[in-house]
């Protein structure tokens, strides 16, 4: 990037980054930002990539429809679950999806509190990703119940049987954690959208757009008093979402760690799960950002610098996850527990050893070797490949954990687990649900926060000079 055309810094502009890399390319104004981002939604012209992505997702969604109807007709017996592996794909996919969702909250909340202004270009669509990923995640426990129409039995509600949930069980904690997570993510996302929806309402030319965005914008008019309240709420939501995102995956890990299965009953599980969640979530954000910014020509707003920073976060969390694998091995060996060590050997050399080594290769060896190189971090093709590798690796991590059930204390209780075609159909279908929702989101809602990009713009160009919400919301 040539330094010659950098704008001279206004006295009131806060430095955006220590190295002063512009997070939004030069020559933008308040109007051009609104048009670049809002135009995607309002103009209604969509690149071929959008149609390919949407139709692929929609086709996969039909597979989900078939799989769910057959499941409701036949029952969960159509899946490969049986003793001793009674959870199977349902819990693997649940944990995988909810982990992917965590990057959205991390980007929108934790990076907000840390003044990481580069989050601005990616927070909106990673928050959307969170919501859709949590929807996909929630699907699996619901379907695994066998009688999903009784899902409300999970919640405490007065009933003639006088039954109440058992609040000392991690499975009940999980219900509350995931419900809260979904609701709070939705609130956070919607609140961030309100000023942008107002901007779309005022910029829209078509009548239906003015009505649609007008209703969603709640009559927002940008009053200074309203902004002050709004920023306070947004800041507090960021503050409470930060422990929330950590708590949700911690509770998910309790589903495993509170049991007494060898290698599950470990105190490392909560931090290890959280790190893995962030790892896979960032991989998904980057995997989606690379094609989308290219299709919509948004490289001037979602710059190479953003992608590079996210790849660095992946590098860091990748090492945390690897530390978790090494630690599991070490604890099993050092702990001198016959069962821990025996299960470790089964995991590494037993009938499912292939899945363990796929995990190590796709999650640790391949990404963590190549992410060090700046050239690879800035190469769309290689980074996309690495992200897909991490997504596969994190899926296999959960597979390896769940499959531990097949070989535990007594050989007489050993068994094998094999997914059926309906397991695969539900998994592919959930990806279809995710892609369909995601592409509809891109089509109808601004995928980057217009308001926050305007705040980031230097004062000379009419913006807020990199003013952050922390400074505005006493």
């Amino acid at each position: 990037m040539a330094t010659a055309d950098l704008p001279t810094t206004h006295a009131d502009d806060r430095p955006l980054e220590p190295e002063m890399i512009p997070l939004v390319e030069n020559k933008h104004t308040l109007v051009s930002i609104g048009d670049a981002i809002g135009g995607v939604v309002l103009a209604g012209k969509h690149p071929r990539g959008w149609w390919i992505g949407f139709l692929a997702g929609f086709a996969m969604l039909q597979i989900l429809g078939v799989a769910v109807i057959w499941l409701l007709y036949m029952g969960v017996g159509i899946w490969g679950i049986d003793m001793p592996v009674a959870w199977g794909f349902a819990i693997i996919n649940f944990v995988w999806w909810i982990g992917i969702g965590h990057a959205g909250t991390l980007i929108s909340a934790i990076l907000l509190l840390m003044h990481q202004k580069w989050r601005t270009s990616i927070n909106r669509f990673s928050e959307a990703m969170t919501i859709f990923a949590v929807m996909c995640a929630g699907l699996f426990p619901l379907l695994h119940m066998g009688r999903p129409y009784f899902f409300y039995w999970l919640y405490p509600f007065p009933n003639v049987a006088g039954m109440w949930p058992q609040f000392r069980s991690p499975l009940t904690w999980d219900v509350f954690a995931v419900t809260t997570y979904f609701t709070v993510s939705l609130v956070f996302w919607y609140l961030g959208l309100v000023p942008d929806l107002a901007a779309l309402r005022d910029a829209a030319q078509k009548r239906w757009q003015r009505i649609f965005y007008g209703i969603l914008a709640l009559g927002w008019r940008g009053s200074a008093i309203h902004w002050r309240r709004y920023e306070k709420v947004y800041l507090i939501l960021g503050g409470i979402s930060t422990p929330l995102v950590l708590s949700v995956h911690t509770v998910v890990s309790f589903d495993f760690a509170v049991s007494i299965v060898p290698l599950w009953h470990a105190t490392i599980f909560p931090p290890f799960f959280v790190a893995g969640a962030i790892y896979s979530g960032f991989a998904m954000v980057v995997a989606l950002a690379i094609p989308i910014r290219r299709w919509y020509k948004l490289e001037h707003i979602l710059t190479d610098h953003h992608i590079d920073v996210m790849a660095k976060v992946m590098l860091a969390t990748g090492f945390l996850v690897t530390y978790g694998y090494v630690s599991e091995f070490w604890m099993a060996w050092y702990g001198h527990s016959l069962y821990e060590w025996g299960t470790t050997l089964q995991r590494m050399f037993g009938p499912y050893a292939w899945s363990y080594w796929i995990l190590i290769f796709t999650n640790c060896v391949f990404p963590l070797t190549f992410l060090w190189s700046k050239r690879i971090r800035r190469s769309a093709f290689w980074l996309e490949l690495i992200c897909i590798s991490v997504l596969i690796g994190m899926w296999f991590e959960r597979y390896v954990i769940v499959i531990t059930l097949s070989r535990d204390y007594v050989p007489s209780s050993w068994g094998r687990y094999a997914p059926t075609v309906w397991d695969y159909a539900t998994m592919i279908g959930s990806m279809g649900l995710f892609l369909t929702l995601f592409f509809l989101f891109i089509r109808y809602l601004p995928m980057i926060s217009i308001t926050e990009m305007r705040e980031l713009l230097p004062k000379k160009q009419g913006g807020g000079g990199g003013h952050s919400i922390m400074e505005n919301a006493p």
Partner: protein
Amino acid sequence: MSTPDAPAGPRPYGLLAEFETADAMVAATYKAREAGYTRLDAYSPYPVGEAADALNFPKSEMGPVMFLGGLTGACAGFFMQYYLNAYGYSLNVGGRPYLSWPSFVPITFEMMVLTTALTGLFALIAICGLPRYHHPLFNSKAFDRATRDRFFVCIEADDPNYDPAATRAFLNGLNPASVEEVLDE
């Protein structure tokens, strides 16, 4: 026939001055308050903290509101679990006490977060008087740019010092891009 007591047509909502920069809007807000106006507001496409300061709104009420919401949720969450597992449907798990508070921590926390967030959302909407799909300011064509690239100050007609001519002259003295009367209809 119109008389001075009952003027024909809609009443004015206020006078709306348009500015090109946030700094000009903030300066105008300060000057308007110095001139004795109390019923006014500033509008901008992105938050400008100084404008709220100029309007003498240094701190919003949302913090205590959300704190109370969260506290209520946390207490309700904790006692719900204790009551339901001790009295509603007594579960004796391995002889552990009914008030086994460590196992109630996760749900207490989740309920706290949930109620804080929902209180924040609904309190914000309610305290700001939203949703309000029509507002007199939306009658102004220029005001469309309040979410785009312009900054506005509106002195409202119910201000005790409001006078159509004098207030307009005052606003014109602040070097605005335009001044217009917005009708309340």
